[in-house]
């Protein structure tokens, strides 16, 4: 379209007709992507739209079911990340790949250390590391420092240096800035712009619209496993892009909020809560019938806050009150007990929410075993009754309740995680990014469900990495920055601009 966006050069990379399925889920369907040298190409899309799958295929982590990849016009296929690396494709994934107990230089040269007489040439390795760090805009990091001694934002710079040491032609950044402070983000951006001028092709995956606006030359939007639009950056408004991403008009996605916030008593109160360096002096309350969001960049203490409330973290300072009474919870078992009635929908359903090889049935009733048993003996009839009710309530689609829960689609797995807690009829519901990696339809069902639960009297504390969700679902949003509540947004104040500005800490005191 649009005369190849005015670029006569042949594309460096073309992916055509790429399809990939994971069990019951179609991750990519006939997807296409064209990448040119000397450009920063942003890939947008909701979680689960297929971006990560596409990147993993390109980086050789997984292979596509169908489709082909052309590099410099010649067809290529990568059986491993190492092969992709040799072809000049290097990826920086969201999760850090550094080994904490090795030095920065060891990590940077890990895949292909310089050798002399079969042994690692430490002097050459250090030189390589220094060059890579300088190129990554972080010459201040000592190559002999241990990675575990570096703060998270510095580690991310090492990660970038490590990828540059592999001499990429195409550099992929998958949410690579999510752990960075605002100052580091600026540094990374200037590095990325310099790499672009050196002729590298950069693929930039991010949820942050302002980052894309600042960096990208071209954008491609993915939705439900297909690329739905490609356009030069800056030619569409944020709202148009969001509509492309979700495929329908934005405002219909969320259930209506109550006009005025409920004036009920606070169910959950938190006073001067602190934990190590990650939570500092956090005070807030959640009233009955309220959906309170936790916002901010990833890793600013939101997860720790939810875990602290649920009794998982040891050594928390401050006070937590439930129904006005101070409580000291030291385990999830105490948090879910009858007097408290708390539930936590954890972050990662595969490792924290579910026992994947166990049956749907066993997973559903697992948090409520005390409710369906007498003296440790499971009452199968009572168990089945409660399970059936939950399957109906959440419309869980499972071939059989006896199949392993790992065989369900991501959305249905997440429904099982939620259902297993709703079975207890909790009064305080903590959610840790519950819609990550699930399809749009299931997301909507979850939004509706949250509002229904709140209307029925639950107090909901809801962390999401998706700003739209916070805007659409929450009565109030607490924006965290560096373990502190930076700002509380109420009602109409909850806008993308306010969320992002507060999250990046660019409003107020940082200007000084």
């Amino acid at each position: 379209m649009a005369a190849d966006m005015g670029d006569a050069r042949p594309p460096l990379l073309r992916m055509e007709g790429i399809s990939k399925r994971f069990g019951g889920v179609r991750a990519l369907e006939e997807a296409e992507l064209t990448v040119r040298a000397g450009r920063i190409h942003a890939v947008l899309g909701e979680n689960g739209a297929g971006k990560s799958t596409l990147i993993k295929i390109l980086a050789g982590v997984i292979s596509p079911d169908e489709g082909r990849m052309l590099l410099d016009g010649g067809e290529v296929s990568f059986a491993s990340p190492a092969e992709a690396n040799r072809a000049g494709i290097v990826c920086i994934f969201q999760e850090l790949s550094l080994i904490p107990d090795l030095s920065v230089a060891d990590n940077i040269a890990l895949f292909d250390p310089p050798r002399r007489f079969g042994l690692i040439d430490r002097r050459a390795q250090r030189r390589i590391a220094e060059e890579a760090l300088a190129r990554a805009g972080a010459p201040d990091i000592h190559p002999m420092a241990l990675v575990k001694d570096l703060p998270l934002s510095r580690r991310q710079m090492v990660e970038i240096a490590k990828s540059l040491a592999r001499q990429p032609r195409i550099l992929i950044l998958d949410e690579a800035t999510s752990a960075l402070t605002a100052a580091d983000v600026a540094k990374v951006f200037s590095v990325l712009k310099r790499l672009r001028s050196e002729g590298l092709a950069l693929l930039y995956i991010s949820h942050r619209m302002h980052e894309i606006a600042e960096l990208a030359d071209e954008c491609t939007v993915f939705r439900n496993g297909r690329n739905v639009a490609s356009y030069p950056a800056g030619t569409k408004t944020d709202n148009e892009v969001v509509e492309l991403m979700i495929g329908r008009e934005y405002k219909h996605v969320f259930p209506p909020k109550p006009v005025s916030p409920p004036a009920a008593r606070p169910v959950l109160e938190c006073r001067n809560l602190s934990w190590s360096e990650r939570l500092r002096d956090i005070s807030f309350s959640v009233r009955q019938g309220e959906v309170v969001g936790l916002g901010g960049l990833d890793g600013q203490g939101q997860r720790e806050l939810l875990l602290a409330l649920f009794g998982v973290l040891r050594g928390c300072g401050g006070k937590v009150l439930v129904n006005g009474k101070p409580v000291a919870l030291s385990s999830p078992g105490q948090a879910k007990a009858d007097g408290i009635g708390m539930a936590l929908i954890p972050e990662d359903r595969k490792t924290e929410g579910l026992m994947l090889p166990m049956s749907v049935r066993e997973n559903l009733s697992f948090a409520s075993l005390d409710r369906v048993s007498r003296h440790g003996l499971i009452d199968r009839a009572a168990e089945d009754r409660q399970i059936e009710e939950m399957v109906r309530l959440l419309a869980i689609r499972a071939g059989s309740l006896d199949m392993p829960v790992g065989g369900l689609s991501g959305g249905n797995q997440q429904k099982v995680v939620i259902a297993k807690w709703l079975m207890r009829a909790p009064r305080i519901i903590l959610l840790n990014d519950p819609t990550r990696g699930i399809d749009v339809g299931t997301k909507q069902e979850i939004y509706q469900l949250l509002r229904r639960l709140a209307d029925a009297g639950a107090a909901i504390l809801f962390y999401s990495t998706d700003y739209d969700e916070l805007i659409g679902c929450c009565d109030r949003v607490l924006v965290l920055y560096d373990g502190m509540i930076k700002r509380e947004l109420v009602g109409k104040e909850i806008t993308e601009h306010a969320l992002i500005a507060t999250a990046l800490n660019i409003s107020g005191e940082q200007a000084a």
Partner: protein
Amino acid sequence: MSETANLVGTRWLRRVDPAVATAFACIILLLAFGSLYSTNFLSPEYLLQQLKVASFLGVIATGMMLVILLGQIDLSVPWAVAVGGMMACAAAAYGTVGVYLAIPFGVACGAAIGLVNGIGVAYLRIPSMIITLATNAVAQGLMVVYTGGFSPRDSATAAMRFLATGSLLPGIPNAVVIWALIGFAAVFLLTRTTFGRSVYAIGNRERAAYLSGIDTRRIVMVAFILSGALSAFGGVLLAGYASKAAQAMGDAYLLPAIAAVVLGGTSILGGRGSYLGTIAGVILITVLQSILSVMQMPEAGRQVIYGILIVAMLLLYGRTPALR
């Protein structure tokens, strides 16, 4: 397409675990092979005798299975068995009260070893391989101190001998009845109670179980206590069988107990396995031992064959396709 086939496959898998089926098939093959040597191998007397011998291993393997289902291991079996046998016999030397309390005392000593293991693994987060090896060494040392390094003089009580060698039901050895009772209890525990459900859950994903509000540490500790107690009870029975306890009486039970559990299809990584499989594994190991001894295979050769068998079974069943 392939995904529906997978689902059907997994459903079938859950109904008839191929490991269990294979283990039973191996038993039949071994007996058929043995009958080539001597027709005695198919006689009811021989089979009942094998079942009786298998009972001792069966009791011990039951405890081992609980621990393996958690994704842990109990290497203190050898001396938990010896402690059970020796302490029961020792108690018998203290008058009538001692005679009455011999069996409970022996089992309690094993439970104490299990308690130490359990506290170490669950609360102090010591890897089970290390702590159980350590308690095994400590138990051995204590027993050597107690006996002065000689074979203990005390002999088993009449009750112990009756449990191990008598037969209350005509024709069926008591040991087999005891194993059957313990087996029923184990099946019940694993399938019908919150404890059993939690054991499987912890073996699959301890973090998820903990975040579901289960007291995972208590479950782990109780499983180790049960393992220690069952090992010691196995020792009590063995002492009754031989009329006395011996220093190294448990040494021959560690590897067979692990092998029986694993051959029966219980995942060595925890979270998956059925008691039926353990029964099959126990019988398989016992018949194998019997045939090897009939063939006059030296002890060294038997050890080699155990080791190879375990590795072969792990290769066959240890790697189920990863679920998303």
